[in-house]
């Protein structure tokens, strides 16, 4: 991954409220945040970072609608066209008794489709080796990562001062080797 930067500056916080305020200030100063890492979903984080809302639930709806259509059309085709059986003269297209399977297939398609989309979008699959900036971000530290590739030493020092000023308990450089 030659195009990817290998030099980063890391600010670590230990309290999510201080962390959220820090993000607001840093974004206000116009400093670009490369990545944000937290050990658990912090309430209000995506607002502070100015992220737009995820469209995952829309995908879920579309998968669900596919499931509904799929189940209803298969059952209708089988019961009326491909294999019309006479159940004591009852209708061949009994919509009420299609409801349970249609519902189950809607849920199945929505859930499976959403989880797959989620894994693809989040780059999650078994065996993926992620870049770990700091091991403690899955334990007790809230981290902001800044890309400092090609930045002057003075700029980095200034950034360090901003982070410390915003209550970061630790500020450090993280330099990856080429094969990491």
């Amino acid at each position, binding site marked *: 991954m030659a195009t990817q930067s290998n030099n980063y500056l890391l600010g670590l916080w*230990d309290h999510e*409220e201080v962390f*959220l305020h820090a993000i607001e200030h840093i974004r206000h100063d116009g400093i670009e945040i490369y*990545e*944000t*890492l*937290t*050990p*658990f*979903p*912090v*309430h*209000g*984080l*995506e607002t502070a970072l100015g*992220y737009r809302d*995820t469209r*995952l*639930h829309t995908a*879920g709806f579309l998968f*669900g609608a596919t499931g509904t259509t799929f189940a209803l059309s298969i*059952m209708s085709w*089988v*019961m009326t066209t*491909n*294999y019309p*059986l006479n*159940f004591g003269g009852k209708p061949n297209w*009994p919509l009420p*008794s299609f409801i*349970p*399977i249609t*519902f*189950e*297939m809607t*849920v*199945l398609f*929505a*859930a*499976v489709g*959403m*989880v797959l989309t*989620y*894994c693809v979008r*989040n*780059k*999650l*699959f*078994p*065996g*993926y*080796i*992620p870049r*770990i*900036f700091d*091991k403690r*971000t*899955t*334990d*007790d530290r809230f981290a902001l990562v800044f890309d400092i590739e090609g930045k002057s030493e003075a700029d980095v020092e200034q950034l360090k001062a901003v982070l410390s000023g915003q209550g970061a308990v630790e500020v450090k450089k993280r330099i990856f080797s080429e094969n990491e």
Partner: protein
Amino acid sequence: MHAYESDFREPLINGLDKNYTKITDDIVGPTERTYKGWWPLMIIFGALAGLFVFCLGWTVYYGIGAWGLNKTVDWAWDITNFVWWIGIGHAGTLISAILLLFRQRFRTGINRAAEAMTIFAVICAGMFPVFHMGRVWMAFFIFPYPNTRGPLWVNFNSPLLWDVFAISTYFTVSLLFWYSGLMPDFATIRDRANGKTRKWIYNILSFGWTGTAKQWQRFESLSLVLAGLSTPLVLSVHTIVSFDFATSVIPGWHTTIFPPYFVAGAIFSGFAMVETLMLIVRKVFNLEDYITVNHIESMNKIIVLTGSIVGIAYITEMFIAWYSGYLYEQFAFYNRALGKYWWAYAWMMSCNVLSPQLYWFKPFRRNLWITFILSIFVNIGMWFERFVIIVTSLADDFLPSSWNYFTPTWVDMGIYIGSIGLFMTLFLLFCRFFPVIAIAEVKSVFRTSSEVAKRERALKDEKQNGGFVGHTTFGILDKDDK
């Protein structure tokens, strides 16, 4: 920026020594060492799981004749066990999905283990319908697929087929929900791991999770939608299971009350099983600070509610049988309570309806020994409920010359006891290698609902208001400082 939380509420995380690292240590700790009792338990339950496999093998080899079924009673322990296990599974989904939608924070301490229990219970449940078909190697006939036997399809009007879809969807969705929550926690274990192999394994399990803000945003969206999907799903599953009976013409089965009554019973037995397991887990793994007496009490409240719903359903069935004026229905219920299976009915009534009434009183709800014993009673009672419904309705059918009595064979008993062995084996493996509490979720309620946070807020208020401390300062302490 913490959400509203009344300081009158008991903390969900006890102990003033808690912080994020301590939470990680406490929950991940048990996966890093083998507990003394683990191997003996594993050997016992592993042997029982072996018995399960052996008895199923015997059934396949010898045929369904190995069971105590006869011409009249053609469903007995097999379907009893199936419905019982499926019911037990329901608590996990209720805790993780319905309580999430209702924003009940106490779910965070128990949802992981309860969902694991759901999955293992559904695995056990699924075995029974498959093996009661007899020729297991043809089990795939239940799926609708294009085949070369002419146009030949399954009957989409049959509740038995709906069951196939309901159970398989339920299993898949529960597994996805559970696993999507596990990924971040596996990443926590990975980042603590010392050994290279351990790190490698947990990285695979975590799917390479890192916890970026975007990942968490999608995570929250995913869990919310999955919870929204699982909620009607869990209600539909036991509804459809009850349709297996309710759409038949057997007196005692053919009643419209079955769906809500089965769902309530399922949640009832599921919560009892969660309590049985969690009371042991919290003790063995020293997790009393995370699964507190408050958690147990909340579950006991659900048990007294659902137990009473079940009780009302029993009485309603009786009343409607009498009120209907339908002779066969009346006989079915008279026979159920006072006939040759009166003892099963007595077990059912005393365990399911009478025993949970103790929980109207707070000292009983908060007593761990009583909770443990009652949770086992409830599960015995719920097994008998299914037995009573299935066997008593079949044994004395429309034709008195066919009336019969069901006696289980050793194979019946072996399969049932063995299924408990399989369930416990899977649960023990889960306890040994997986985080039994959702680490990230517990951390996310730490600032609002822990004893530490409540104390911090009380101290802050003491400074501001001069000696006006803590749990009596309603209003002042509770303002949302957003």
